[in-house]
């Protein structure tokens, strides 16, 4: 049957055409198309990979930031605590010093007071002695207005002196 008998001319032209088609398409169409498609696919894959990497990096950074922040917060707490402690210490110390100072001042004041008192007492004693002397002088002057009395007194005094000398010897 004619329909299933291949015609030699068509076989010839088909061979020629298809070989040329295969050659031209392979060299000028399929190779550039396939290679650029592959290239594009690789680029896309790489970009996706890079994006995922960047995301992971970001997450890591975030985590780091958070831990840094937490650390900083803890540090601040520490510092504040320390500052409070130092403040308390300083205040305490100051109080103690002040107390000691006060005590010392009081002591000094007491000492001064006692010293002043003593000095006053001494002065008073001197004054009293002076007054006594004056009184005694006046009394003696009055007593010694007559000779008898003077003689009696000298006698007593001399005897007294004697006694004293013997006692000291």
């Amino acid at each position, binding site marked *: 049957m004619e329909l299933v008998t*291949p*015609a030699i001319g068509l076989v010839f*032209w088909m061979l020629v055409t298809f070989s040329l*088609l295969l050659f031209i398409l392979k060299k000028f*169409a*399929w*190779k550039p198309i396939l290679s650029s498609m592959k290239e594009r696919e690789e680029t896309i894959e790489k970009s996706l990979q890079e994006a995922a990497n960047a995301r992971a990096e970001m997450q890591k950074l975030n985590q780091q930031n958070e831990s840094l922040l937490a650390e900083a917060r803890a540090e601040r707490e520490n510092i504040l605590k320390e500052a409070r402690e130092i403040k308390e210490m300083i205040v305490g110390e100051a109080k103690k010093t002040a107390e000691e100072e006060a005590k010392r001042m009081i002591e000094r004041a007491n000492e001064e007071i006692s010293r002043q008192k003593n000095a006053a007492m001494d002065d008073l004693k001197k004054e009293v002695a002076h007054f006594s002397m004056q009184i005694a002088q006046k009394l003696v002057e009055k007593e010694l207005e007559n000779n008898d009395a003077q003689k009696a007194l000298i006698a007593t005094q001399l005897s007294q002196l004697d006694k004293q000398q013997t006692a000291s010897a």
Partner: protein
Amino acid sequence: MPYFSALFSIGRLQKNFLLVLFYAFSALAVHASDSHGEAKNAHEDAHSEQKMDPGKMILEHISDAHDWHLWGHTSIPLPVIVYTKSQGLSVFSSSHFNHGHDAYLGFRLNEKNQVIWENEAITDPIYDLSITKNVLAMFLAVFLLLFIMLSIAKTYAKRSGKAPKGIANLIEPLIIFLRDEVAKSSIGPKYERFMPLLLSIFFFIFVNNLMGLIPIFPGGANVTGNIAVTMVLALVVFITVNFSGNKYYWKHIFAPDVPKAMYIIIVPIEILGVILKPFVLMLRLFANITAGHIIILGFFSLIFIFGAMSTGLGYAVSPLSVAFTLFMSFLELLVAFLQAFVFTLLTAIYIGMAVEEHHHAEHH
């Protein structure tokens, strides 16, 4: 799966074809009684018009020709190139034959449109290398294919790394589909070497199938439904498969893992299989595309068959005919893709079998 889809498409065509035949016969049976009264009338019509032979018309449409029929008595004459030992190479226009009525340089056309000697006593063989309708249609399809693919390649070079644009958007999914679903899955890691062949085969068949569906000039030729074309395609597949076959492929054929006594049966079967695979490829494409053309032409012929009985009947049948033809044309669009796909897929599977690296422990 590929066998299944191929069988499915054939089965579907056959089913539709049977439906058509059933419809045609039942219609004829119904109208046979009616047409008695109009028989005389119809007879007169037949006298005035040229008698129509649908079988001859269909066969003329699906076979090759030395001129490209456009309409009525208008056709494009094509160059005739014949080589004979006695006359050497002769190149002349097919218009010299005057549609088979005249002889030229001692040649004439027979009723099958073949160039033969005018003097039938000469037995010198004629090598007819004419640019026939199918050759020209194939050239046009190839030019179209080259134009599309080369311009796409240019846009790829220009826009490297960017998204595809324009017609590349249409072609790229097909290329990716063929690469990932056909080549990669059937051939395996060595698929890249065979991509150009697979793509060329696919797009050649696809474009020619589609061009064949266009009813007017640049289309309409039955290129992929021509046994010579499918034979060359199958030959290319046969050569590729057997030249890329590795030692496991040949061992599987000549020294399969069966008892030596079985070789006498198995080896011839395997050798037959090597030839049969491309042979089936050739027949499948040829049969599917030719069948599609025949069915569509058959539907159109119905109009004229009924028109020959009575003009009114012809008009009455024509909407149905057109509807069926439209439906078939849509189906043929699917078949155009499917057959190109099946041919490519089977080629990839055969190549995959030939380049497979491991030992065949299991037999099939």
